């Protein structure tokens, strides 16, 4: 029992980080019906940026988010303006899927050319210390990571719920043409929302670099998890993504201790398929009709 509780704690802490990375993905889908397959590669890119900042300038990885996030926001808006906005026509959604995939490959290629395929990890002094609470080991870094993720998710929630920009985002999600009639600049909302979605990758990347060793190819593993989280939660639902991420984090950690770590990442695929059988639209999704 002790070990299962320990695994659950680990799972919740990990799940929080995944929730942050997936929330950007699902937000972008909600606003513009684009699945950003490059989200994983952008997280890895951020991980490299905060790795370099830590190694060469000794910036703490958690603080480096403040530097990396504006850069990722700018990158995201540029990508949206250059590649995604110009896609028109009936198959624009599928094309955006492929074009962000190409973007992921491009990022992987550039990172591979600069950093080769050696695994790296950001190693701040506190990386291996942990607290003991009621006999359970709790890693300090994971708690920081979880706290950072929760903080950013709360910020994201406030941005969506309380600001004028958030209102125009929600209006665009619910009904793009009515929103435009009411004076919402839908194109601008889409660009900024894409930038915000990509900017969440900066925090995800900083944390990822501390928690796991990574190389340019790590984004495949990451994006497969993120995609399963957003599909499980229901495409476009930020709350659903958070629930799904916590669920997957816990399932993965428990399977790792009870069965074998080899099967842990496989277990959430099984969970996902089981849920899709019952609810094809995901936990909190709206049933998709024809295109």
């Amino acid at each position, binding site marked *: 029992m002790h070990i299962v509780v320990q695994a659950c704690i680990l799972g919740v802490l990990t799940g929080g980080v995944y929730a942050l990375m997936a929330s950007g993905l699902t937000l972008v889908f909600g606003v513009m019906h684009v699945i950003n397959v490059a989200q994983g590669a952008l997280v890895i890119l951020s991980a490299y940026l905060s790795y370099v900042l830590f190694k060469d300038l000794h910036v703490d990885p958690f603080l480096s988010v403040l530097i990396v996030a504006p850069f990722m926001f700018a990158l995201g808006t540029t990508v949206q303006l250059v590649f995604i906005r110009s896609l028109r026509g009936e198959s624009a959604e599928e094309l955006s899927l492929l074009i962000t995939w190409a973007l992921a490959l491009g990022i992987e290629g550039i990172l591979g050319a600069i950093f080769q395929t050696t695994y790296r990890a950001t190693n701040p002094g506190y990386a291996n210390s942990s607290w003991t609470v009621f006999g359970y080991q709790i890693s300090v870094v994971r708690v920081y990571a979880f706290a950072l993720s929760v903080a950013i998710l709360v910020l994201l929630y406030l941005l969506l719920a309380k600001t004028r920009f958030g209102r125009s985002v929600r209006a665009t999600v619910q009904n793009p043409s009515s929103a435009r009639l009411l004076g919402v600049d839908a194109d601008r909302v889409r660009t900024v929302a894409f930038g915000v979605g990509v900017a969440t990758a900066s925090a995800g990347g900083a944390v990822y670099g501390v928690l796991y060793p990574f190389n340019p190819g790590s984004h495949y593993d990451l994006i*497969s998890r993120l995609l399963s989280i957003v599909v499980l939660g229901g495409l476009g639902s930020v709350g659903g993504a958070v629930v799904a991420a916590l669920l997957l984090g816990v399932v993965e950690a428990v399977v790792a201790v009870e069965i074998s770590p080899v099967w842990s990442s*496989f277990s959430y695929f099984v969970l996902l398929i089981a849920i899709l059988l019952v609810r094809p639209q995901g936990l909190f999704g709206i049933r998709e009709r024809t295109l």
Partner: protein
Amino acid sequence: MSRLRPLGLGRAAAVFGAAIAFPFLVTPDWLVNIGVFTLMYAGLATAWNLFSGFTGYISLGQAAFFGIGAYALAITFEHVSIGGGYRPFYSLPLIGLAVALASLPVAWVALRTRAMTFAIVTLMFLFIVQQLAFNLRSVTHGSQGVAVPQPSFTSNFDRPYYFAMLGLLALGLLATWYVRGSKLGLELLALREDEEKARGLGIRVTRAKLIAWGLSVGLTAMIGAVWGYYLFFIYPESAVDPLLMIGAVLMAFLGGKGTLWGPMIGALVLVPAQQWALTDFGATRLYLIAYSLVFVVVLLLLPQGIVPSLRRS
């Protein structure tokens, strides 16, 4: 039933005549090797088109069946003698049929979702199969990979593989041509345009989608099997490769999805360039950058594809 038109027949004869003559006219092994890969991608893109081009459901998981086909052949001939070296080719129809049938439950689950969700679910299926290839060590030997027995023919080594790939491409084109003119083709077209309406008109949409899926998967698995035999050694990361998948999809988009010759034309344009980039920049991973640039240019400039653009002008 599709009609045979003299023009179409002449076109097919010219294309396949040139393809058959190629390995006899061009002898350097490395060129025939590029030929094998070109035909492989042409076949994969054609097979992908058979399902996704006709139904409008973008599958990003077909490469999983490529890998399953390769493993099926490799694991079978670990235990069975390959005879003179041609026996694995004769086993292809069986592998194709078995993989296609085994894939139907997967399709049935995946097809409960629509549009983007379907694309993501199939993409995740690709990752699941790769994980399984790593984890089921007793069957696949995990990351060590499986060795396929080497055939005894040594002179003109690439030729049998070349013709096997050509045969599978021909099969794919024939299936596409037949389906396009058949009742099934009309049903697929109807459900691609409006699935609810098609269902309302009494079309058995699930049956139509599953048949197209089965054809596409069987063909993909057979191509994978030939590829595995050609390379002698298969690993989880090379047999179930997201890059292979995106390559095939890109070629279908470049040539024109939903058309007969489009995917093949896309492969003819892109594969030689890809193989060249791979040999010249492979070590530095710059080929990934080149690849993604080509991809972006194709999608932004020619989203309709070559064949439909030509037809319109």
